[in-house]
């Protein structure tokens, strides 16, 4: 049997669902008051831009985790996507954008097929493709020695560096994808199938939910989105940096969990994930504001924070 969280009363329900949002608001208010520069438009724009890449990846991760799975390959796919975009940019905008989406999407598809058809553990399958994608990346870049540059005048750079009222394009891409993701999750049959698959897989099969198809789709989505995030980053950096994205899959998992998605599957929201990204990025930003603090402490603080959030969720759920 699946243990179901007992809903004691409406107030804890709200707190539980909005716990991360409340924390985010508090963090922002305190940071604003403590560091005058935090509230500056420039800083907020930067914050949003930095968060947008992670949001794109974490949307895919949210779907995967709600089905009860995990995708460890996204960090490698993110880096691979960036390099492929940079390499492809010499053949024009379309090549720069579609190449990473297709390649990373196909790797995601293979993940999904292996997990759904052969019943292998998602952890193992995606760990294998984490290694595979990172290896492929190193092979096509001569072990990282060869960094592909994107011509500064290409339209592709505009995708990463262009702005509206100073807000970078990637922010809008992430926002549109988040809205779309939320809509797909809550307002389509596919979304319902995602919840059913993670909530009670055996029952879902008996209820006629296409469980295998659903799994294949979420991993394909996750791979494609990781590739897109990589392409956006490459466009922003004007080059395919090979060393990025190491351990990014863990950041993505962390923000999804902080956002209230159950790691065991069956429950979660895109909005929560976006809030989770906001929290992590605000913490990092504040640490940068302090300046004197070694940037390595970012991870320490993020880690402690993740623990606090998870413990709080647990307590509130009682």
């Amino acid at each position: 049997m699946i243990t179901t969280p007992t809903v004691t009363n409406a107030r804890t329900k709200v707190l539980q669902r909005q716990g991360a949002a409340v924390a985010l608001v508090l963090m922002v208010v305190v940071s604003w008051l403590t560091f005058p520069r935090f509230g500056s438009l420039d800083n907020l724009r930067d914050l949003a831009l930095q968060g947008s890449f992670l949001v794109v990846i974490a949307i895919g991760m949210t779907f995967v985790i709600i089905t009860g799975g995990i995708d460890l390959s996204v960090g490698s796919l993110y880096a691979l996507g960036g390099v492929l975009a940079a390499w492809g940019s010499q053949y024009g905008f379309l090549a720069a954008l579609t190449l990473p989406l297709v390649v990373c999407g196909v790797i995601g598809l293979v993940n999904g097929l292996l997990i759904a058809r052969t019943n292998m553990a998602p952890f193992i399958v995606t760990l294998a493709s984490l290694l595979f994608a990172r290896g492929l990346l190193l092979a096509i870049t001569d072990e990282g020695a060869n960094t592909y540059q994107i011509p500064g005048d290409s339209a592709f750079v505009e995708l990463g560096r262009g702005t509206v009222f100073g807000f970078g394009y990637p922010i809008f891409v992430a926002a549109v994808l988040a809205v779309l993701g939320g809509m797909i999750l809550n307002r389509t049959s596919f979304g319902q199938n995602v919840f059913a698959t993670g909530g009670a897989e055996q029952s879902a099969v008996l209820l006629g939910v296409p469980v295998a198809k659903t799994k294949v789709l979420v991993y394909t989505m996750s791979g494609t989105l990781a590739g897109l995030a990589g392409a956006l980053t490459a466009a922003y950096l004007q080059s395919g940096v090979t060393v990025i994205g190491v351990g990014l899959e863990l950041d993505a998992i962390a923000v999804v969990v902080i956002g209230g998605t159950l790691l065991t599957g069956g429950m979660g929201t895109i909005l929560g994930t976006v809030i989770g990204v906001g929290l992590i990025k605000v913490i990092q930003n504040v640490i940068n504001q302090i300046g004197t603090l070694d940037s390595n402490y970012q991870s320490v603080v993020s880690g402690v924070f993740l623990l606090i959030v998870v413990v709080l969720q647990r307590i509130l759920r009682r």
Partner: protein
Amino acid sequence: MPTDPVIEVAGVTKTFAGVRALGDVDFALQRGEIHALVGENGAGKSTLIKVLTGIHTPDAGAITRNGHISTIYQEVNLVPLMSVSANLFLGREPRNRFGLIDRARRDADAAELLRGYGITADVSSPLGTLAVGEQQMVALARAVAADADVVIMDEPTSSLEPREVETLLGVVRKLHEAGIAIIYVSHRMDELYRICDTVTVLRDGVNVHSGPLKELPRIELVSLMLGRSVKEIEKHGTTAFGEGHHADTQPVLEARDLTSKPRIGGVSASIRPGEVVGLAGLLGSGRTETAKAIIGALPLDGGTVLVAGKPVAHNVKASMKAGISMLAEDRKTEGIIPNLSVRENIVLAALPRLSKFGVTSRSRQDRIVDTFIERLRIKVSSPEQKVAELSGGNQQKVLLARWLCTEPKILLLDEPTRGIDVGAKAEVQALIDELAREGLAVLLISSELDELLDGADRLVVLRDGSVAGELEGDQLTREHVLAAIAAEVMDDSDDHAGSHQDSH
């Protein structure tokens, strides 16, 4: 008899790993009838249902389906974390003009649909927050709303309270009136005779009887299920215990003043070799706790356990070494390790004794396992079969074998026949009898009074954690036991009503 079958199968055969589950079964469900499908566990009911619904493909035989089939399983197969309305409409959600799910309409439709089933719960709350009976009703509503012509119900009432059973049976009648054909699987004779028109009895994968139910006397039906003649059942009763045992005079186990607040206070009992002592009492009267106290699994505030006159240290290891073994009540959580093989499950407790310097002799294991499989008549395709694949009765026998191969002097059995079918029950009862005859001292806990009265030589009646009486010989009657249990209720007029509800 009009023949207008909605489903018809002819000569269906299905085997799993060399074991025949169905053999040349003919079955027809007529339009609009309520058809009882009965048989012991392992008789092939589930397999037949899965063949009917298309989950299994039969090895041989023909299937004709003239309608849409919905199945409701014993355990509610819905998604507890999703909302009631999402569960109800999963796969056929109402859409708005953009093709997106119309959540407001889904909730409204769900609320209206469920009102017909007497459910007024908030349809947007997670299904898991509803009572089990309500969840079952949601499952039923879902099945029916899917425009089913046939609804298959597999033990739908096994987890319901009496009041919920009535509601469910009411709904079944409504479906019947609406012309929906129903296959109703249940062990509960009362329900079957109340609502079913026809019956099919499966035994060992074969259809042994199909026909109108009302004309078939109950005892005849039981005899068809068991494959024993009516005379046999009348003579021996429904339990398989023999006559009293010849017990030695010196008790092998003595429990003195066992106290563990607040569950038990000062329970004393003794068992002689070759004797079966029953522990009777209502649920919560301290039966299981007494057994756990004896084997050292319950922290004690006071009291001693003596085996053959010598006190035993109060821990499980010492108790087992002294020759006490216990078969726990809940075999799923406290006994069986489903993914291990029959052999591994059996030798688990005896491993320390079978090994030298941590190395176990495989040939000795095999010898022991073979002996017990034969002796306890455990039905397996091989000792390497996974325990999870066995029926409840056979799992229970595997557990019994596990404790028997530790060569205990005293066996504590907590509800050994709960949740297993009639035939396996009889076999387990006969085994207990046989073991006592061979000199084992047995403590038998059962909620079934008949089982205790037939099986035990002596009864210790518990109430509220202490001994309310000991019955022997002529006193072993239903009236005496009930009197001993009821005394409490009469003494104590403001007694919690709970103890009554739980009495079966």
